Every structure is written in structure tokens, then in C-alpha cells.
């Protein structure tokens, strides 16, 4: 997961992993793309069927493997392709957020958003905001595993 820049330009850049639901947020990303809306290149996207499919383990594992921030984005409440997936996800993520706050993981390492297929502009805005928030936090040192030095 090295940055793809020549080393002389290599200053720290946050690496952010985004889990996007197939039906809304991923389509929103697509719309942002075809609309030529810009957003920071720090975000790497993993497409999932539904925000409800995202196991908190995925988020924690990503942080352990060294990403600096994680975003989970799904359909707006009421719009879930599977009707209720995002409602269940909301309770689960609330719990995860409570837990991470309580153990002292910085607020903003893990973020959530609802972005619909029609919201290309919102998608690009969310990506920008998430990236800037993580950039302000600096590199993820708390949960990252250090046994293998990179």
C-alpha cells in the first residue's frame, strides 16, 4: 500500500478505505465520476451489497492493517434496497462509535454517511470532508499493527 508518487514528493497522505453500498453510495460515486466532480484521491473504495453487510470487524481490521480512516456509506434511511439493512447497520455503527470513543480512538477515524445514487455532488463533498478530517488527525497509530515494519 505504498503511495504511488515518486519518493521526492512523498509527504504523508492519509489513506482512507470506503465501504460503499452497491445500490446508493457506489452509484453516487459513479455519478460523481461521470459528472467530472473532483474529490481527493486518498480514498480507496470497496463495494459491498449493503451498509448492513459491513461487519465492524472489517473496519477494525482495516485500521489494524494501517489505513488512516474508514468510511462506511449506504442508502438514506428508507431507501435501502433490502428495505431495512441500513437501519440495522445504524444501531450497530452507533455501538461501534460509542466503543471506539470510549477506548480513546480519535473521533473521525471511522465515519459514516448516507449518499444516494443521485447525490454525486454530496459524494464528492463527503469524500473531501472525510479526507480533511482524517488529514487533521494525522496518521493512524493507535490501532495499527507494527510487527511488520513497512
Amino acid at each position, binding site marked *: *500500500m*505504498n503511495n504511488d508518487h515518486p519518493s521526492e514528493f512523498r509527504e504523508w497522505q492519509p489513506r482512507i478505505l470506503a465501504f460503499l453500498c452497491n445500490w446508493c453510495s457506489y452509484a453516487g460515486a459513479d455519478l460523481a465520476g461521470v459528472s467530472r466532480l473532483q474529490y481527493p484521491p486518498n480514498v480507496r473504495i470497496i463495494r459491498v451489497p449493503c451498509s448492513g453487510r459491513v461487519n465492524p470487524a472489517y473496519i477494525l481490521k482495516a485500521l489494524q*492493517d*494501517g489505513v488512516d480512516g474508514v468510511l462506511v456509506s449506504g442508502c438514506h434511511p428508507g431507501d435501502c434496497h433490502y428495505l431495512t439493512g441500513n437501519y440495522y447497520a445504524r444501531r450497530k455503527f452507533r455501538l461501534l462509535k460509542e466503543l471506539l470513543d470510549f477506548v480513546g480512538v480519535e473521533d473521525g477515524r471511522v465515519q459514516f454517511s448516507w449518499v444516494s445514487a443521485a447525490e454525486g455532488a454530496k459524494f464528492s463533498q463527503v469524500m473531501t470532508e472525510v479526507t480533511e478530517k482524517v488529514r487533521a488527525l494525522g496518521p493512524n497509530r493507535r490501532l495499527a*499493527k507494527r*510487527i*511488520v*515494519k*513497512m
Partner: protein
Amino acid sequence: MMTREIRIIPLSEMPAFVGALMQGHKVLAPTRNDDGLCVFAWLAAPEQADWTCGIPQVPPKQAFLPRTEILFTYHREKGRETITPPPAPEPQIALGLHPCDVQAVKVLDAVFSAEPSPDQPYLARRAATTLIGRGFTEQDPLVFCRELGIDPMDNRDCDAFLVPLAGGQAEHTTSRMALEILTDKGVALRLAYDGFPKAGVEDLAAIAEARKQSAARGVPLLDMAVIQRRLENIFNSDLWNRIHEPCVGCGACAFLCPTCHCFDIQEEVMGQDGARVRVWDTCQFDLFTRHASGHNPRLSQKERSRQRIMHKFSYGVGKFHIPFCVGCGRCIAVCPAHNDVRQILKEISDFK
């Protein structure tokens, strides 16, 4: 064993002695952690060594078999791998080991030096280690090393040995330690002990008396040969149907056992870099024997509990002529179900 020389170190001077040992060595010693629990840990400061501890709950095996040991690291670039061995182990001292913990090191030595494949990382750490044992006059009720023939005053297999001596008014409180230097490795610590006075005639008499008293405390020995023979015949017995029942199948007993040495080898990979590490493992876990096919020859806690007893009291004795239990009592102290290995041994002995 020939004692090369004996020095007397007042208890108040022990930090100075430990501090001198820490020059040029990593030192593992009994310490008390924030919870008041005695554990063997690497010292950051000489004062951390605690001489009031009995047998620390965390054993000293981490000096030779760390919980995580990097066997080598690797890097991949343009389809080529470079492999880097870990740095050679630094000189280290395992300090304050109860004679039963010293016996445990002997068990580990037997296992890891066995032909045809002696374990190089273990042997390298072992060779870099100076063992300083420590005698005990009191015996914790959970400790049953005497029943296994281990005298808590025995300096066997140590490079140096500390004998606690009472002095002056306080007859039962240790006021000084007699440091017995037993091997070349022990002599190599000269810089640390040279400032302390040699033992006088009275001191020598006190040491001899302490040894005599310890040896005089006769306890009936457990007959390991009988237990081993019995175990050979009861592999398929009903006995095991009951013994395992209270066991919850955690790894506390094995991880805190000074002789348990089973490990797993895992890959830690990130991008183009990785490390092959070995980590503690235990026969009490389901995953320990699960095959890649999903089949597990030790399917339930019954088989796993049996394995623990068999390995300690039968296979170990059969192969290396030494029981893989040293009677330190740690497993009894930490078992969440308070399973007592002494009672299990009794059940085995009584079983007809």
C-alpha cells in the same frame, strides 16, 4: 556442583547488584505489576526486582520462548524476495528462578535440543542466557515441587544461585542473600558481584543449615513411574469422561506453565513486507489440532484435557525421562474452574 565462590549481598544492596547485572544484559526477574501481581518481566530499573514474591504467576519461559518470536522477515520487490534473519539475541540474565522453574528450563532444553532437529532460535537465546536461581525456605500451599523431588534450595543447573539468609534479630526475615557462583557464566558476572564480601565461616554454616533444614522436610514423593505406567493403560478409559468436565478449554494453564512450549507459526504480512512469527499455542484449543480438511482428531475437551495430562506425565517421561510438570502450582492458581492437577493425579493413581 562445584561452587566457585560465595558472596554475601545485604538485601538493601540488591538493587545495586541488579543494577550492575543490567550493565550489558537484559534482566528478567520477579516484579510486582500495578495490580500487585508477581510476574517475571524484563526489568527497566533495578528496584523493580521484587524479593518478596513467591513463584511469580508469569513464568520465566519468555526468556527463551517469547510469546511472539520473529523467525525472519521478508520483502518482495519486482518478483524477488529478500529474507532477513532476526538480530542475534542479546546477552540476558534470568534472575531469581525458583528451583522448579530451573527444572522447567531443563525440560525446555531437552525438548528444543532433541535430534534430529534442534531448535536454533531457542538454543541461541538459551546460550545467551545466564541463569541465576534462588532458594526458598517457605513453600506456598499450591506448590508441590517437593512431591516431584525438587528441593527449593537446590542450586542444580544454575550458573549462580541466591540463598536467602535470615540475620540478626529478625530470625525469619531474609536480610541478605548468599550468591553462589557455580559456572563460567556465573564467574563472568564478576564485575557485578566483586564489590561484595566473601562468605565467612558463619555464613557458610548458615547456608549449610538452610540446605539441611530444607532437605529434612520429607514429603511423600509422587511415584512418577507408576503414574506413567497407569497412563499408558488408560488412554481409552472412562476416567477421562469426567475429568474434563469442569474445564472450560481456555489456555491459561498452558500459557502460564513454565514447561508448556507448543507454538504455532503464522505469517504477518503487510503489502510487500512480512514476517514469519511463532506464537504460543496450546493443546487446549480446538484450533490446535484442526486439520486443513476441517477434521479434528481431538474433537472435544475430553481429548484435549487428556492430552495435557498425557503429555506432561506420560509422553514426556517416556521420551525424555523427565516429567513435563515441575510442581510450581501456577495452573492451579490461574485455572478459572480451579481444576487442580494434584487431584487429577490422585484420581489417576486411585483409578482401578
